[in-house]
């Protein structure tokens, strides 16, 4: 494969430097440097109504190491959330993203914090990639005050407006028209930025998606619709839900691109391409071919509608973290031990955040009545007996 060829040439040139670099390795930080590196994506892009971007992705050691660290962090975070849920510290819904990390990480590498992202309920990792802290994640999952929504949102309602992350939505498909609305506002304000509206293969059949796509195409909005196709809409396989599971083609007159969603570099390349396209030509659809290891949510074992062999097969062949690990090792950007150390570091970070989150208190009962309105009217709320004023709505 193309990778091995590049790997061989890299090791040939670095063999001269080997004695020097090994002496320096004790002092060289694992953050890597910015020297350019070109990597080929796993598979070429498939396009619809547009010309596919090149398979060769420009990157650098620093970026690859950042990818590794961020994805390892997300993976550890989701697995920790699984344990917390089983320990009954998290209640309600909990939809885990492990397996799909490359989409969050690759997208973030291609855009700025001025571009908007909006997604559905599988939002923990997207929130983190937009700058959310682990404490905010775990505290919100456990419903504590230190959470990003002060414990009032829960797993499905993470928001970070200052880095243009608009949630976190529970109603399947609703986030797509909302995302097109964000793109409308960006165009109205002449910001030269774009919106990525993420949805799943389950939501891809929603009518409101096509309504919003129609308007976006008519008004040339800088909206990028990203279908995170993990092949199962809850428990329904894509071929049982969609007559045409080629989601990148479903836009008809809207161009589309099919991307290997387990390859962070392919995701980065596609998002970069999509941003340039959307700013000039209006909406585009990206289909990320990805996979989730967990079931739909914590109440789903994930094995009644798919085989364990399938899950372990994907884990062995296509795992996004393993791909980046192999890339880093083959290019000699870090040693295996260094990468293991990163994973240990990340594990500790997650554990510390959980400990800190556990100390955060639950919201006060008075919070039931706050934030109902941005501008309340001092209206008094009585209890059921209508005799005593229970709260003055702020």
């Amino acid at each position, binding site marked *: 494969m193309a990778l091995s060829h590049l790997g061989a040439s890299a090791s040939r040139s670095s063999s001269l430097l080997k004695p020097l670099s090994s002496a320096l390795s004790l002092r060289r930080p694992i953050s890597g440097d910015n020297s350019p590196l070109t990597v080929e994506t796993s598979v070429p892009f498939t396009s619809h109504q547009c010309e596919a971007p090149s398979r060769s992705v420009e990157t650098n050691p620093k970026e690859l190491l950042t990818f590794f660290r961020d994805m390892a962090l997300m993976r550890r975070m989701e697995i920790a959330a699984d344990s917390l849920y089983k320990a009954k510290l998290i209640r309600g819904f909990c939809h885990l993203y492990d397996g799909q990390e490359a989409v969050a990480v690759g997208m973030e590498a291609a855009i700025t914090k001025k571009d*908007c992202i*909006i997604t559905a309920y599988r939002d923990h990792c997207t929130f983190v990639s937009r700058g959310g802290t682990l404490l905010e994640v775990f505290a919100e999952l456990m419903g504590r005050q230190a959470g990003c*929504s*002060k*414990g*009032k*949102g829960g797993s499905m*309602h993470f*928001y*970070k*407006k200052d880095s243009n992350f*608009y*949630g*976190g*939505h*529970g*109603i399947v498909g*609703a986030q*797509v*028209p*909302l*995302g*097109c*609305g*964000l*793109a*409308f*506002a*960006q165009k*109205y*304000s002449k910001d030269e930025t774009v919106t990525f509206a993420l949805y799943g293969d389950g939501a891809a059949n929603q*009518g*409101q998606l*096509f*309504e*919003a796509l*129609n*308007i976006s195409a*008519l*008004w040339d909005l800088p909206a990028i619709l990203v279908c995170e196709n993990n092949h199962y809409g809850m428990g329904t396989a894509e071929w049982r839900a969609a007559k045409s599971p080629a989601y990148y083609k479903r836009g008809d007159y809207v161009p589309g691109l099919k991307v290997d969603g387990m390859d962070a570099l392919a995701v980065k390349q596609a998002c970069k391409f999509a941003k340039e396209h959307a700013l000039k030509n209006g909406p585009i659809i990206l289909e990320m071919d990805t996979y989730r290891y967990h079931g739909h949510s914590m109440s789903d074992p994930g094995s009644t509608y798919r085989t364990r062999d399938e899950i372990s097969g994907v884990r062995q062949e296509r795992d996004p973290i393993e791909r980046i690990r192999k890339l880093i090792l083959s290019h000699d950007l870090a040693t295996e031990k260094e990468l293991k150390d990163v994973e240990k570091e990340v594990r500790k970070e997650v554990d510390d955040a959980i400990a800190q989150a556990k100390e955060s208190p639950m919201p006060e009962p008075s919070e039931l009545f*706050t*934030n*109902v*309105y*941005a*501008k309340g*009217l001092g*209206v008094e709320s009585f209890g059921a*007996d*209508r005799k005593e004023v229970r709260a003055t*709505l702020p």
Partner: protein
Amino acid sequence: MLGIVRQKMLGQSLLKIRPAISVLRSYSSAAKQMTVREALNSALDEEMSADPKVFLMGEEVGEYQGAYKISKGLLEKYGPERVLDTPITEAGFAGIGVGAAYYGLKPVVEFMTFNFSMQAIDHIINSAAKSNYMSAGQMSVPIVFRGPNGAAAGVGAQHSQCYASWYASCPGLKVLSPYSSEDARGLLKAAIRDPDPVVFLENELLYGESFPVSDEVLDSSFCLPIGKAKIERKGKDVTITAFSKMVGYALKAAEILEKEGIDAEVINLRSIRPLDRSTINASVRKTNRLITVEEGFPQHGVGAEIWFEFSL
């Protein structure tokens, strides 16, 4: 009607006592007439002119000049970037409106009638009303959903429902329903300026009705407070609460009752959510009798909510 005659007579008598006129500021001697349609149009015009973030979106609001001519002249004045004709896709364009509000713009989304808002009700409730709460204050949604509500003239069951009680039951929404031109102007301006999602329920049959408006109402900074009802007619024997078109019927009923020696107090609710409970309570404490009038279905309606206070 009687009111206008009374005012004209007063105006003539005032001319004779000119020097004392400055004391009697509350009366404008020659009251201007304005239809509800003109009131809404002028309110939209002024708010769009004052704030570049305000824009109007809906079916036929632009080139058609508005399905009921409420947005007449606005496309010409503000251009197609701020007055947007949408396809017939309520779920889509309501969602786009809410998304624009998330980003910080101030959309006014028009539904041709609120019957069609049911296609978009998920966005009104789940995407707009609940967002500020679920995000603990990060995502405020300064959007206005407006359009005719309730029955028109013989348009059939699918086009005649009143949605006041549906929307008013949802925390996070503010629900307003004007009657007169003064209400229409003041409440629409307040709704557009408000940082929360507002459902603004107009009435098609009121669009053509004319009401007197004072100079104060015509001023571009005129605004009515949200959450305050208006006592249209003071009385002492019975309280009649109503909103939108029913206020007109309540006032006519009060005139008929007057001939029978019954003095009715008519309250124009103006704001369905939040309900001005203190005004209603004070009135019922005075009269000890209550009649609630509404166009909507009686079960779980606005009247049922008002009645609940007094059934305990």
